[in-house]
């Protein structure tokens, strides 16, 4: 070609030059210099650390009041993972996302690193522990001299057991100060309703696992209600399809929560009128003679006032529905009615729970599915009345010294209570918090406590569960156990010295177990054995029988009233506890911020849920900022348009909107508590979250609502499949998929082909698996900006699909999506450098150091489970201490994805080899399957026909996602089973 001669480069010449350049590159890459590195030996080796071998320590989780048992994995002296303790009867080995994220509290870069004191210019400045303790000691001596010991207030979260006792004893010795135990969600109406109905002010444990028909009035038992991990496990037991049967869940609430999304039926009740529905159902049960309860006569008079037609007009629930539920409640038993969430947070909360108690009593559930023996200790926390009166006494200047432990009332109390103004009137405020939260910002002295992972302690979440907390590693920062601080100060205060002879809190703890628990629980053992067994097992666990309770006559005297709402607006305002942040304490943990909300899949921000019709009326689309105005203030949040909410209701999650709480929490989202009045439940005095009607308007501002999943529906693709109960009872057929013929011979596997089954009738979409995967596999946090660009890194995600034909959010399908480890993987043949391939055990392996980042594999992946590192993501010191040393930390330009936790497979094979045997079924459990509260995920060897996973893979409900593409995945999903439409 003439052109080639004149200019440009001929192909042959071009290749020559490239050849040289390529050669240079090889020489360069061939031998990079090795760094000079030191190996630092121990001076004295600790007995229980073998470098390279993990050790597990049992302890108790304190992220919420449920008190799950945990096992903390320690490698070379650092805690690197938290899992559930299989011995604990509460969580039986599983753990929710919040519990797992306790590690990011421990290693949080914004933790207070040592004691702080406010200097003359009003700033908190580091001081030494000696000086810090001296400052507190002097204050206490001064108060003692003035005889104002009764003006000390110790404000703590729900701490049971030894530490709580020590505080009480200490306050008593100092002259009778007050110990206020403040929990944001104190369940006071429940306590009061049980007192009225049964004469016991206890909060029972509910045996959801024995229940075939669960009628939940707003109780979000899969997210935050009482003990979510425990109830998720129990719910899965009762509700998953088994032996041609399954339980039914009917959720009554104005806004579909995650629990509601798992329900078989959603009853979109008018907010706050649940009591009437319960009474209406009870009315039908009695008037139609569905039960022959000897005591029903007691109730006849009361219930006669609530015929279905009247109830229907109060509650917006159709008459037929009321009648049907009444019938089902009795016939599909054992049944259970529970109340929580929105149903029990308005001005008539206690009445609602009394009505629910009546229902349970009529159906004979008390003692069967309601166990007052295993009662929860959360019933012992201070009432909202006490908290409010304490705030009042602060503002009157009646508090001389305020000590704050592990609570953040400046964030969790409504602004209208004026906590922050009141605390300014207290001459001396001491905080023991680990973080500079809104309350600690007000303190004059900060004496940071260890986190739960670094200290001794105990926790009794309910009768029969006595959990122990042991330090799993030495403290990360210069912190000191608050128990130790109290003892070391007491040792120097005249007059009380003799009562506090313990050197450390550990001594005190042992003593109280010796004097309190051992005589009660195991008097026959010697103490050392008893103690060591307790520490090793994470506490002591036993069953408590349910005592018999009778319906008291007081029930008939209860007046049932309609809820009261403040404000002129036309929309009910629902603020609900977040499944990720609880009352806001989780907001400083990046794992939780980046864990997509199960319903909206939004990350790193707040939103306001509204119904499509409301959106149309307001002219609002998703992402539009809404202004929500109550008489007490205004907040702005982005709209999320959702069928699962009543058109007259707007809902905003709690937990975000922190002014200070570290880099991950600050200036992010809104705090709906800010616009709530100080309204209470009429009977119990508990705080009424559902008490406001708001004005909702469009602000005109729009931003993309950042979500991990953009689509709401699966369209016509059968990704998350379901069958109805009748269909499966009649036998599934006609859906067999014919194997496509292959040109290539099948893969040869040696001994193992690792596979997984995921039961969609068990998965609740909670997201515990996602956080477990982040913790195990060093998955990077990318932040809101990157998520909005579709660069979310999670190796496992929960795909959430709303049912297209359904008018509501109930029956939402959740599908955990992770690498399918296809036998015929589309990603493999397109990799130009053989960085991903199928190995001899059926794993789709990703070799990071081969990967050059073409991203062809991701483009070709049917399931979009491959994630590309657009940056080398950073873990700010000391968050990086948590990294799992058994898993490579990936850097920029590399593709990554689920490995089926290959490091765990290797570990198990290594163990098996030591013992000269094969890997047993169930011995390898990936992090996701381990954490799952409902045990939806089962992992194992598909070549072993006897293995659990093999059997499940052949289940009649089994299918592969998008199997028409013939990728031959190793993951078999079991179809969700739905109740047939009534």
């Amino acid at each position, binding site marked *: 070609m003439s052109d080639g001669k004149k200019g440009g480069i001929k192909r042959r010449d071009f290749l020559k030059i490239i050849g*040289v350049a390529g050669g240079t590159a090889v020489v*360069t890459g061939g*031998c990079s210099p090795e760094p000079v*590195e030191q190996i630092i*030996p*121990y001076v004295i080796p600790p007995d229980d650390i073998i470098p390279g071998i993990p050790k597990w320590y049992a302890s108790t989780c304190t992220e919420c009041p449920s008190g799950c048992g945990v096992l903390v994995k320690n490698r070379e002296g650092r805690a690197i993972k938290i899992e559930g303790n299989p011995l604990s009867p509460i969580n039986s080995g599983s753990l929710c996302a919040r519990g797992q994220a306790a590690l990011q509290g421990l290693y949080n870069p914004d933790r207070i690193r040592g004691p702080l004191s406010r200097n003359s210019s009003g700033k908190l400045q580091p001081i030494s522990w000696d000086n810090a303790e001296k400052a507190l000691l002097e204050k206490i001596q001064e108060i003692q001299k003035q005889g104002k010991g009764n003006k000390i207030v110790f404000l703590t979260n729900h701490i049971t057991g030894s530490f709580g006792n020590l505080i009480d004893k200490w306050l008593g010795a100092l002259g009778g100060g007050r110990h206020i135990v403040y929990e944001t969600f104190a369940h006071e109406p429940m306590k009061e309703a049980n007192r009225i109905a049964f004469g016991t002010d206890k909060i029972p444990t509910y045996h959801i696992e024995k229940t075939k028909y669960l009628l939940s009035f707003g109780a979000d038992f899969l997210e935050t209600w009482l003990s979510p991990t425990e109830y998720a496990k129990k719910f899965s037991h009762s509700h998953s399809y088994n032996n041609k049967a399954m339980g039914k869940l009917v959720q009554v609430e104005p806004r579909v929560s995650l629990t509601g999304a798992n329900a078989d039926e959603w009853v979109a009740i008018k907010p706050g009128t649940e009591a009437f529905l319960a009474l209406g159902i009870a009315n039908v049960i009695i008037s139609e003679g569905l039960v022959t309860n000897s005591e029903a006569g007691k109730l006849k008079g009361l219930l006669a006032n609530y015929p279905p037609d009247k109830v229907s007009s109060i509650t917006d629930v159709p008459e037929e529905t009321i009648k049907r539920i009444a019938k089902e409640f009795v016939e599909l038993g054992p049944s259970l009615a529970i109340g929580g969430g929105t149903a029990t947070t308005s001005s008539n909360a206690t009445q609602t729970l009394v009505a629910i108690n009546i229902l349970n009593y009529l159906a004979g559930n008390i003692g069967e599915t309601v166990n007052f023996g295993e009662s929860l200790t959360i019933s012992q926390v201070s009432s909202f009345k006490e908290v409010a009166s304490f705030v009042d006494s602060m503002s009157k200047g009646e508090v001389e010294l305020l000590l704050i432990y592990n609570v953040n009332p400046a964030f969790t109390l409504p602004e209208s209570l004026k906590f922050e103004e009141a605390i300014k009137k207290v001459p001396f405020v001491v905080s023991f918090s680990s973080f500079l939260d809104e309350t600690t910002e007000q303190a004059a002295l900060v004496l940071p406590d260890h986190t739960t992972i670094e200290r001794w302690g105990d926790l009794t979440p309910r009768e029969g569960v006595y959990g122990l907390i042991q330090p799993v590693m030495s403290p990360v920062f210069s912190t000191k156990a608050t128990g130790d601080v109290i003892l070391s100060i007491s040792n120097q205060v005249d007059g009380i010295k003799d009562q506090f002879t313990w050197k450390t809190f550990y001594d005190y703890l042992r003593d109280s177990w010796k004097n309190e628990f051992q005589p009660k629980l195991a008097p026959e053992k010697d103490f050392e054995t008893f103690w060591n067994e307790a520490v090793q097992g994470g506490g002591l666990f036993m069953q408590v029988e349910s005592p018999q309770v009778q319906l008291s006559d007081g029930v008939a005297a209860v007046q049932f009233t309609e809820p009261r709402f403040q404000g002129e607006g036309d929309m009910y305002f629902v603020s609900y506890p977040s499944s990720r942040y609880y009352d806001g304490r989780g907001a400083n943990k990046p794992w939780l911020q980046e864990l997509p909300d199960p319903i909206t899949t939004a990350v790193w921000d707040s939103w306001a849920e509204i119904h499509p019709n409301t959106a149309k009326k307001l002219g609002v689309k998703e992402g539009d900022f809404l202004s929500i105005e109550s008489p007490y203030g205004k907040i702005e949040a982005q709209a999320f348009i959702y069928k699962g909410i009543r058109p007259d209701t707007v809902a905003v999650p709690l937990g975000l909107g922190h002014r200070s709480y570290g880099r991950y929490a600050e200036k992010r989202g809104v705090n709906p508590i800010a616009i709530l009045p100080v309204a209470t439940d009429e009977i119990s005095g508990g705080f009424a979250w559902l008490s406001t009607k708001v004005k909702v308007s469009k602000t005109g501002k729009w931003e993309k609502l950042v979500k991990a999943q953009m689509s709401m529906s699966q369209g016509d693709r059968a990704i998350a499949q379901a069958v109805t109960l009748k269909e499966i009872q009649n036998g599934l057929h006609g859906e067999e998929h014919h194997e496509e013929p292959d040109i290539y011979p099948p893969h040869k596997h040696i001994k193992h082909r690792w596979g997984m089954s995921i039961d969609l009738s068990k998965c609740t979409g909670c997201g515990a698996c996602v956080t477990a995967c982040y913790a195990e596999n060093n998955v990077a946090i990318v932040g809101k900006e990157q998520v909005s660009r579709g660069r979310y890194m999670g190796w496992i995600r929960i795909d959430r699909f709303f049912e297209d034909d359904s008018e509501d959010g109930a029956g939402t399908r959740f599908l955990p999506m992770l690498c399918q480890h296809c036998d015929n993987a589309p990603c493999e043949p397109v990799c130009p450098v053989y960085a991903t391939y199928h*190995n001899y055990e059926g794993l789709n392996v990703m070799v990071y150091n081969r990967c050059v980042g073409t991203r062809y594999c991701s483009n070709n992946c049917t399931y979009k489970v491959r994630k590309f590192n657009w940056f080398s993501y950073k873990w700010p010191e000391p968050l990086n201490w948590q990294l799992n040393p058994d898993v490579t930390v990936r850097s920029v330009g590399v593709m990554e994805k689920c490995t089926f936790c290959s490091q765990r497979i290797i570990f198990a094979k290594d163990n098996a080899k030591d013992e000269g045997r094969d890997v047993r079924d169930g011995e390898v459990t990936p992090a996701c399957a381990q954490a799952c509260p409902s045990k939806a995920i089962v992992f194992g060897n598909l070549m072993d026909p006897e293995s659990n996973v093999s059997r499940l893979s052949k289940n009649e409900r089994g299918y592969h996602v998008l199997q028409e593409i013939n990728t031959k995945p190793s993951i078999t999903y079991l179809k969700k089973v739905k109740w047939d439409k009534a």
Partner: protein
Amino acid sequence: MRRPITILSFVLLPILILLGLYFYPIYPTAESSIKGPTQPILFSHKIHAGDNQIACQYCHSYVAISPWAGIPSVQKCMGCHSQVAGRDVEYQYDGKKINIKKEIQKVKEYWDKKTPIPWVKVHFLPQHAHFTHKRHILRGFECKTCHGAVEEMDVVQKVNRLEMGWCVGCHTKNAKDEEELTRLKDCLTCHY
């Protein structure tokens, strides 16, 4: 006629070569063998493992139970050296004359100050690779297979470059059968 390719060869090639040289590390290749690094204490493996026949596992005690062999704690050093103060004699250590007693004295100083001895690492596992000592030892390999005759070295030095080709060579040679060869050559054996 000046063809563009000529310009390219004269301009681009030298640039590429220079770049290559710039990035080429000043580091010896292959088995030309490097001197081991200078350690904070002139410790002789020859005296310990050779002359006194102390078993490797006495000090590297985790080798059969952990991925990592482990290095002895200062306490372990003192376990012997609280009794063995060393002779006050000169010793030819890697071409240098050293006094044994003085070197042992240094161990005691670290112990008295309760500070660890900052040993300099000799054997580097390349990045992105996992290795377990335990499996190799339990299979019956001797330490010297990889680390060389340490008992003859005053200063420990690398005799094998711990690179993939070398690893795979050994894995290939030692596989008992086709199945084991597949397993031992699988990327996931080391890379995860």
